[in-house]
């Protein structure tokens, strides 16, 4: 829409002004690094964070989310929607691409009111990474190291100031009402261009192929020995799913109050790496082995999502699953091995 400039010292006032009106979730420091949390003070925000263990998707898909409440004595059902206005601040572009994908998954086919209402009341302020976060990310290969849509506002750090890409009218109003800003001047635009082009060279391409060629690679990899090789190492702990910004599969659970009269049905994060994920009533399990379940996960990441939702990706190259896995099962390792085996 437009490009604005804000001074670095105006960033904290911007956040505290928003905090007066909205819940603001942003990256804050904790014992082990950084995490997304509801801010109590603007000064907690750490836009210099490298990555978080859990992705910010929990703001759109909480670990446990009430779908409806019910009464058992006098049957009645009341839907539960979370429509608090909130700002998700400081999202990296890999996670932003993941949220674009989630937006489409939950809006298409049978639209999911719980997700869509929460999404509609959430503003996203993203931030451009100017350096790779660590040795595990591969956003350059997945083409997620920048973004042109999916945000309300997008910040790019340029020394003493930030360039702000205004993505939506809501973003425009958010900036207008909470922060001093001015239209970018010619020298500021020149600096922005220079910074953006200098950034590319600093990011390594860790995959030996381009992300857009993954569906084709996966299409010929069903019978690869790689699945057995990693399958014997995998514990089936599901950590890789829990930390992934593009995982959205869920389980559904009922809970009743102590007097048994009221209760709620909620959905909770689930993991396709767990043994019971595909087991049915007769006891049959359609993905019994770790190898089958890993293949399923990598097929979703590399093929199914991209094919079912054109323009979207099942993996955004954030590297979180690689960091989380105790036995070093990583997308870069798996995809490069498959690529090498097929010598594409």
């Amino acid at each position, binding site marked *: 829409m437009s490009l604005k400039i804000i001074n670095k010292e105006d960033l904290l006032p911007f956040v505290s002004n928003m905090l007066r009106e909205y819940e603001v979730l942003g990256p804050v420091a904790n014992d082990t690094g950084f995490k997304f949390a509801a801010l109590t003070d603007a000064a907690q925000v750490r836009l210099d964070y490298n990555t978080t263990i859990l992705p910010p998707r929990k703001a759109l898909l909480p670990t446990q989310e009430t*779908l*409806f409440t*019910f009464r*058992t004595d006098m*049957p*009645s*059902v009341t*839907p539960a929607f979370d*429509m608090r*206005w909130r700002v998700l601040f400081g999202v990296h572009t890999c996670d932003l691409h993941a949220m674009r994908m989630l937006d489409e998954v*939950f809006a298409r*086919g*049978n*639209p*999911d*009111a*719980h997700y*869509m*209402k929460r*999404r*509609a*009341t*959430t*503003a996203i302020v993203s931030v451009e990474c100017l350096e790779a976060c660590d040795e595990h990310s591969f956003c350059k290969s997945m083409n997620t190291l920048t973004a042109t849509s999916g945000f309300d506002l997008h910040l790019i750090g340029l020394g003493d100031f930030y360039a702000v890409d205004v993505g*939506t009218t*809501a*973003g425009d109003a*958010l900036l207008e009402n909470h922060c001093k800003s001015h239209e970018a001047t010619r020298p500021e635009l020149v600096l922005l261009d220079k910074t953006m082009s200098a950034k590319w060279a600093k990011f390594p391409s860790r995959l030996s192929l381009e992300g857009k060629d993954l569906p084709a690679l996966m299409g010929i990899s*069903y019978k690869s020995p790689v699945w057995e090789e990693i399958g014997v190492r995998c514990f089936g702990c599901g950590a890789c799913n829990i930390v992934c910004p593009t995982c*959205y*599969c*869920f*389980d*559904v*659970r*009922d*809970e*009743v109050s102590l007097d*048994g009269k009221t*209760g709620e*049905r909620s*959905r909770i994060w*689930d993991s*396709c790496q767990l043994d019971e*994920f*595909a*087991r*049915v*009533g*007769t006891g*049959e399990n*359609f*993905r019994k082995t770790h190898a089958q379940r890993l293949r*399923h996960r990598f*097929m*979703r990441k590399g*093929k*199914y999502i991209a*094919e*079912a939702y054109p323009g979207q990706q099942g993996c955004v190259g954030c590297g979180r699953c690689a960091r989380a896995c105790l036995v070093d099962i990583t997308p870069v390792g798996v995809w490069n091995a498959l690529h090498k085996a097929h010598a594409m």
Partner: protein
Amino acid sequence: MSPIPAIESIYIPTLAWISKVETMTAMEKMFTIELPRGQSLGHKPGQFVEVSLFGIGEAPISISSSPSRSNGKFELCVRKVGDVTTALHNLDEGARIGVRGPFGSGFPVEQFEGRDILFAPGGLGLAPARSVINQVLDQRAKYGRVILLYGAKTPGELLFKDELQTWGKRNDVEFHVTVDRGDKEWIGNVGVITTLFPKITVNPRNTIAITVGPPVMYRFVIMELLGKGIPEDQIWVSLERRMKCGVGKCGHCQIDHFYCCQHGPAFNYAQIKGVMEAI
């Protein structure tokens, strides 16, 4: 931020009630369900509903009655296997339950008109198959031959015994039943369902085969059907998967690129042949 969409939750069940309960076998009961204000479910044969017991959970159950006999009610034949199904078995007539659906693709019966239909359900597979069987029999003139092969483990596990007798007596239905293991009274066929195939002849090009049963059964029955020369896209199955939403979101029912709750549960063999983990 954008305008809040004015849409309703796809996870909210409609309150319905059980108007009739019949015990069928030691494991299966048949429930007749009525929706509020005599509303019709409006289902296609082969579709399913998500049945809710508040405080326990939900389970996907095939609609066992045919649309041709709906009159504001529908039937579910439920095997007791776990939390929801056991709790359902403990309910009496008049009890309230929740229902979402109908979901899934169902069998495209209109496309089967003019064809010979070969049904080969096994065990509980007769529950979903029955919705198509009765749909076809209620519009009998629209179809060619109707052949029905049914197999259960023991005579005690045969479902819909009254209807089996009616079907057996009709001279426009070629009907064969078998049990894996007989008992003292059983004088019929003994052997798995595939032992019935030598008893029938088919015109393969004009035959639609519909087989519903446990995964092991599919492998053998499909081999027989292909052996009779029936083309792959004329062989229909209904696949069971774990389902937590029924609406294409939770991911549990995924089979390769298919979502069983959306693209299925009815599939023709040409669609799923070679798809890993399908059969």
